[in-house]
């Protein structure tokens, strides 16, 4: 399953759980400290890691939509 990933920047507080859950997909932006999706992602087989990251977010800032 492939997804579109949206990060609600008003909610994200830089907890970093998404980066730990899916290090290949997420990082924290160097200036804003907000989660960002790394270039080239998401790809098709990021699915399980994305779902993990989304539920691991304490403020539910990661919104996945199936594409």
């Amino acid at each position, binding site marked *: 399953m492939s997804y579109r990933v949206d990060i609600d920047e008003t909610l994200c*507080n*830089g907890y970093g*759980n998404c980066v*730990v859950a899916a290090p290949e997909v997420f990082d*924290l932006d160097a200036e804003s400290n907000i989660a960002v999706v790394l270039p080239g992602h998401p790809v098709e087989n990021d699915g399980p890691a994305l779902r993990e990251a989304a539920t691991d977010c*304490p*403020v539910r800032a990661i919104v996945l939509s199936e594409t």
Partner: protein
Amino acid sequence: MVVVGASVAGVRVVQALRSSGHDSPVVLVDRENGAPYDKPALSKEVLTSPGTDPSVLLDDAGLRDLDVDLRVGTTITGIAPATRQLESSDGERIAFGALVVATGSAPRRIPLLDAFTGVHYLRTRADAEAIRAAFAQRPRVVVVGGGFVGLEVASSARSLGLEVTVVEAAHRPAGRVLPAAVADHLAALHREHSVRLLCGRTVVGGLGSTRIEGLELDDGTRLPADLVVVGIGTAPVTDWLGGGVPTTGDGVHCDPGLAVHGLSRTWAVGDVAAWPDAETGHPRRTEHWTTAREQAAYVAKVIAGGQVSEPFRTTGYVWSDQHGTRIQHVGRAGPGTVTRSEPTDTGRLFVHCRGDEVTGATAFDAPRELLAVRRLLTTGNREVAR
């Protein structure tokens, strides 16, 4: 399978089981009514913003997806290990195959203050709503206990412009988790935001007749108060397990894989679990959101029959938001560790070391730097695990 407790740990067990393809019937029981909800916001946004509810962990659609039999408003009062049945408050018996104990913890109380109104504890949505309603009367607030919950309540009250005093028995706030240098930094943050912080003081009595009017401290100080919020720690909820399962004041005794001693196919997750730490061997119990989720994922894997040969490990990641400052802590600090402090582009990072080895870190508005240490500790753990 039966999961007792539908907070973040219990719900996560069910979610992780289902995503691993485990499709046997699951009963999820919780003593509270309504949809299971997440607790971190209770000491923060829910207190400061009328109309803000804690986020729901499992809505109707989620329930259907998970195909779980959720029984809210149901307190488990006892357990019959021989017949593998739970007894509920409404007289029902619930048979279990696998059992997950996720009953969490309850606030420790100050019996001296039990006779007064205006004294609050914070654990549930109802508790938070009651404090929020009391805040609207513009009370002078005294928080007893300078742990993370108490400090977050103090921060929330200050953000509403309320007068706040925190009474902490130890010499520094949050000293159970944070080393002295960090706790001092945190204390300074609170003082900058006009929180009156009284450390090394304990409450010896309440003032007033029925409604609380103040607190008397051990040095004779009489502290006026219209609202008292007590946050002096929690005790795991284990009474329902009776004598069949070894518990202490510090939780349900588990093996290094979170399996409960004395009951087959039973595991504990979240605040209630006391397990021997994989690194130190010492019993450990945490009250952390992220650790609860890690425990839940671990146990789900075991129940689903996955190959889990490694003991449970956690980096012990915790966060807190106080006075608009993002506070994050990971790993350990304490006797035997040295803390050094460094400014970062956006804040400050405290790194805890034993010799050359980094054992943990605490960040104030420095999420990227904290994340780097967290990744290091996670990788370190993985290496050890291999």
